[in-house]
């Protein structure tokens, strides 16, 4: 593999990252190859020493998406970081991903339950105005307020649960990516 092939493989494997990020990453490798040549190494030897360009690209992607997930914790960024970690061969993430999704959907349905309670609370509170209603007006309003409060409580609760859960997921991911690095220091032969 020559320099052009190496850089092209890297570039296509890095697809998905911002353009300037890709160029910045490639710059380091270009410089490394050029400096190596001035030190008397051959192009192909330097490239062999790098290891697989696809593997390197995956590492860069995982680092980038991890950083992104740490900066802004949204469903999209955390999912992407999980997928990138999975791409690195962190097989335990196969199990983590469905758990992540299912726990999040539980929190999401809790949140929606909160919204439903909120809406029904309003409906109950104003029901005496619109329909014939055997219950006294005061009872309707009290019940409505109770439902609204319960709905709000569930919404707030599920929001903070989600936030905490996402934080734990990111910590877990981070320790995984770091662990892989140690393994490389000790065992990686290529």
């Amino acid at each position, binding site marked *: 593999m020559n320099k052009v092939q190496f850089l092209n493989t890297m570039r296509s494997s890095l697809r998905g990252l911002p353009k300037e990020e890709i160029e910045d990453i490639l710059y380091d490798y270009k410089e490394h190859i050029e400096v190596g040549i001035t030190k008397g190494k051959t192009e192909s030897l330097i490239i062999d020493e790098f*290891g697989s360009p696809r593997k390197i690209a995956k590492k860069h992607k995982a680092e980038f998406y991890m*950083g992104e997930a740490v900066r802004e914790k949204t469903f999209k960024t955390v999912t992407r970081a999980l997928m990138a970690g999975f791409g690195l061969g962190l097989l335990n993430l196969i199990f983590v991903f469905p758990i992540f999704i299912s726990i999040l959907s539980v929190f999401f349905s809790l949140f929606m339950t909160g919204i439903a309670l909120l809406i029904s609370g309003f409906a109950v509170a104003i029901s005496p105005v619109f329909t014939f209603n055997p219950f006294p007006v005061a009872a309707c309003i009290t019940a409505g307020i109770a439902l609204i409060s319960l709905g709000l409580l569930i919404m707030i609760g599920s929001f903070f649960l989600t936030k905490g859960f996402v934080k734990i997921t990111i910590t877990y991911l981070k320790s995984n990516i770091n662990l892989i690095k140690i393994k490389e220091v000790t065992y990686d032969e290529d």
Partner: protein
Amino acid sequence: MNIQFKKGVLELCVLSLLYENEKYGYELTSILLEKINISDGTIYPLLRRLKQDGYVNTYIRESSEGPARKYYQLTELGKKTQIKLKEQWLDFIQSVDDIIKGGSC
């Protein structure tokens, strides 16, 4: 003992190499490779993370031979982190040393 040191072995090596003076990628990689067996390609993802986390700065400087070089330089945070990680590491190997040498008594 802090578990954190385990994750930081390679980080500690890079931070230590940059502590005295800034280095460019090739230089840093060659020194590291003499001592630890890792593939060259793994250094750059790490360097980018150290930059992202604010431990190193980079700047481009022209060279008399070959291309312009991107130099990696420790920030104040990087220096503080190096000192902290180094202490943890020395503590740890001291403990291990005590255990393995004390095994005979």
